[in-house]
C-alpha cells in the first residue's frame, strides 16, 4: 500500500531522533530504487524460491470444514517457509537491500524470536554481522530460538529495561542504530517504525497475498470471501490483506491477542473495544496501549510475537476506515484452536497464528457453505512446545525436562 509521504491517514510518519535522519533517508531512497529495479526483484524472487521454499502452499482443510459445517477453510502455509514463519519474506528483502547499500551489519528486535532467527539466518547466508535485541522476559520464554540465533553467529542482547519484552527490544535496537547507523541497518521485523519501514515490510510481505490470489484462482476459480490473520505488529496481516485491498468483496479480519482479560496489562488489544489510543512513539504514530499521561503500558499474550504495545500504522488506518474488521482471541481460545488444528489437520501452528485460527473458528460455522475463507498460518508451532505443553497441562513434560536436565548435566560433566 502506497503511503502518503509516509502516512496512512493519520497514522505512520517519521518521528525519529535527528541523528537517524541521514540513515532513514538512505533507506527511503535505496528502497525506492530497488523496488523499481528488475534485477533486484529477480534476486528477491530467486532467494524467496530457492532459499525459503516459496511459493508456500494454500492447503484446503476438509476435516475442519466438515467439523464446523460452514465455510470452506483454507490455510496459507507461511509455516513452511525457511525458519518456520513468514518473517523470512521480509528479512530476505531487507538483507538484499543492505547488501545494495553496502552496509555490513544488521540490528534487529525480536519478540517470539522468529524475526531474530530469520534475521540471523539470512545474515549468516549473506555474511552480515548480526546483533539481536530481545526482551529479557522473552529470552526466557523462547530460549530455543535464542540458542539457534547464537549458533548462527548472532549476538543476542537481552534487554532488561522496562517490561523486558518486544517494545523494550525495539527501543534498544533504535539506540544501537543511533550510534551505528553508518555501517549498520536496522532490520525491523514488522510493519511498524518510522517511514519507510511499514511500507517496505508490507511490500516484502505482500508476496503472501499475491500467491493466495493466484492459488485461489487455480484451486477454486475465484478469490476467497474472507481472510483472517493475527495482528501483532501487523506484518503477516499486511502481507495477506494488502494485495486484496481493491477487491471490495473480500472481507478481512484481523485478530489481536486478548491475553488473559481486558484490563490494561492483561492483553495486547489496540484496535478494538476502544482500548488503544492514538499516540506517537518508537518512530511513528499509531494506536498504542497507554495511560492518560501518555506512558506506554505493559501488554500480555501467550504468544510472545503478539505481545506488543503498538500496531502497524497501515492496519490502524484500515481498521479505522472499516476496511479491516478487528477482533481478538483470548489465551485459552488460542490454545484450543491450536489443539483442534493438530487433531483435525496434522499441522502444528504457532501460538501467534493460532489467534487467527481462533478468530476464524468462531465465525466458520455461521458462514455459508459455499463461502471460502483463507487463514494465514503465519508460523509453525515447534518453538512453542514448552508453552503449549504447560498450557495443555501435559503431565509427562515436567518429568521429561527433569530427566533431560539430569542427563544433560551428567553428560557434560563426563566430557569435562
Amino acid at each position, binding site marked *: 500500500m502506497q503511503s502518503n509521504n509516509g502516512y496512512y491517514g493519520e497514522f505512520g510518519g517519521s518521528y525519529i531522533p*535527528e541523528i537517524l535522519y541521514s540513515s532513514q533517508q538512505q533507506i527511503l531512497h535505496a528502497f525506492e530504487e530497488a523496488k523499481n529495479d528488475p534485477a533486484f526483484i529477480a534476486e528477491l524472487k530467486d532467494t524467496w524460491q530457492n532459499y525459503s521454499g516459496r511459493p508456500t502452499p494454500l492447503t484446503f482443510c476438509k476435516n475442519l470444514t466438515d467439523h464446523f459445517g460452514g465455510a470452506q477453510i483454507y490455510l496459507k502455509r507461511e509455516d513452511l517457509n525457511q525458519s518456520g514463519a513468514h518473517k523470512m519474506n521480509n528479512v530476505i528483502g531487507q538483507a538484499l537491500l543492505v547488501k545494495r547499500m553496502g552496509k555490513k551489519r544488521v540490528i534487529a528486535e525480536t519478540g517470539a524470536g522468529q524475526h531474530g532467527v530469520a534475521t540471523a539466518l539470512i545474515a549468516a547466508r549473506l555474511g552480515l554481522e548480526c546483533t539481536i535485541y530481545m526482551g529479557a522476559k522473552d529470552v526466557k520464554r523462547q530460549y530455543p530460538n535464542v540458542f539457534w540465533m547464537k549458533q548462527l553467529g548472532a549476538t543476542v542482547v537481552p534487554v532488561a529495561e522496562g517490561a523486558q519484552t518486544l517494545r523494550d527490544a525495539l527501543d534498544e535496537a533504535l*539506540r544501537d542504530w543511533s*550510534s551505528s547507523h553508518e555501517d549498520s541497518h536496522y532490520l525491523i521485523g514488522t510493519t511498524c517504525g518510522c517511514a519507510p519501514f511499514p511500507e517496505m515490510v508490507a511490500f516484502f510481505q505482500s508476496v503472501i497475498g499475491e500467491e493466495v490470489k493466484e492459488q485461489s484462482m487455480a484451486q477454486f476459480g475465484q478469490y476467497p470471501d474472507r481472510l483472517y490473520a493475527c495482528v501483532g505488529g501487523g506484518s503477516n496481516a499486511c502481507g495477506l490483506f494488502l494485495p486484496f485491498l481493491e477487491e471490495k468483496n473480500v472481507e478481512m479480519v484481523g485478530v489481536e491477542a486478548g491475553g488473559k482479560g481486558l484490563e490494561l496489562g492483561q492483553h495486547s488489544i489496540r484496535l478494538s473495544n476502544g482500548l488503544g489510543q492514538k499516540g506517537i*512513539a518508537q518512530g511513528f504514530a499509531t494506536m498504542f496501549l497507554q495511560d492518560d499521561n*501518555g*506512558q506506554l503500558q505493559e501488554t500480555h499474550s501467550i504468544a510472545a510475537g503478539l505481545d506488543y504495545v503498538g500496531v502497524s500504522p497501515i492496519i490502524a488506518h484500515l481498521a479505522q476506515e472499516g476496511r479491516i474488521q478487528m477482533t481478538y482471541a483470548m489465551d485459552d481460545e488460542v490454545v484450543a484452536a491450536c489443539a483442534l488444528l493438530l487433531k483435525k489437520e496434522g499441522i502444528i501452528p504457532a501460538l501467534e497464528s493460532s489467534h487467527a485460527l481462533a478468530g476464524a473458528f468462531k465465525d466458520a460455522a455461521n458462514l455459508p457453505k459455499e463461502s471460502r475463507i483463507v487463514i494465514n498460518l503465519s508460523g509453525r508451532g515447534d518453538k512453542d512446545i514448552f508453552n503449549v505443553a504447560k498450557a495443555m497441562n501435559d503431565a509427562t513434560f515436567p518429568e521429561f525436562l527433569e530427566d533431560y536436565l539430569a542427563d544433560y548435566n551428567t553428560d557434560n560433566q563426563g566430557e569435562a
Partner: protein
Amino acid sequence: MSQLAQYIAEKRQQKPILSMTHVVYGYPTVKDSLDWMATLLEAGADFIEVQFPFSDPVADGPTIVAACHGALHDQQLSVEQCLKDIGQLGRDFPQARIALMSYLNPMYRYGLEKLVKRCAEENILGLILPDLPYEQAADLRAYCDANGIDPVWLVTPVTPKDRLAFLASEARGFLYCVARSGVTGNSNHNGGPQQSLDEYLAEINEHSNAPIGVGFGIREKAHVDALKGKADVAIIGSALLDAYNKGGKEEGLKLFNSLFN
C-alpha cells in the same frame, strides 16, 4: 528577538560559557528532583533542562533511561503538575531559565497547543522534543510562534550540510548541537569516523544566528573548556546523573562546581 536568545546573550557578557544542567522530573521522587534542581540553581546553574519522563526514551542512554523508568515505576507523573512545579522553580530563581525536555507522546497526549500556552504562562521558554523532527512539527512551530516559546532543534555531526544550514538558520532560542553519534551518556556503541568538534561547531556558527548549546558526552572540565569561544551553553546530563546516583546532591554538586566554577 527570542527571549531565550536574549537571556543567553546578556549572560554571556559575564561568562565565557553557560551551564545547562539536566534533571529528570520525578526521579527518584518529585520532591527530590525539585530539591536537586533548586540546589543546582543556588550553585549558579544558568539553565535547568527538565526531562519529563517517558516510558520509551529512545534517544537516551542507560543512565537516563533507568532514571525515567525509576520515576515512572511507582508514581503517576502529570505534565500539568510538572509545569506548575517547574514554573514555581523559575519564579524562585528569576536569574535562571527552565527548558522542558520530553518525548512527543506524553506532550501529545497533554495537548501540544495547551502545552505551549502553559509553558508561556510558567515562563518555560524552551521546548526540547528529540523525537519530533522539524518537518513533522508544523503545528508545534505555529503554537510556539504565537506564544513566544522556542522549539529547540537538534543537529548532529551526521546531519547533512544543507539540512544543518537550514536547521541552524531556523534556530531561535538556541540550537542544540549533539556532539557525537549515539544516545545520551557513555555509549557502548562505537560511532563511525567524524569530523572534529571544532570544525563541526565552526560550520554551525556560520549558519546560526541563535546561540549554540552543546550536549552529549560532556563529563570533564576539559570538555567544557574546549567549548569556550565556540559555543554558548554546555549541556550536562548523564554525567551529572551518574554523580547524583553515586553520592546524591553532594557528589552532583561537586561535579557541577568542577565543571563550571
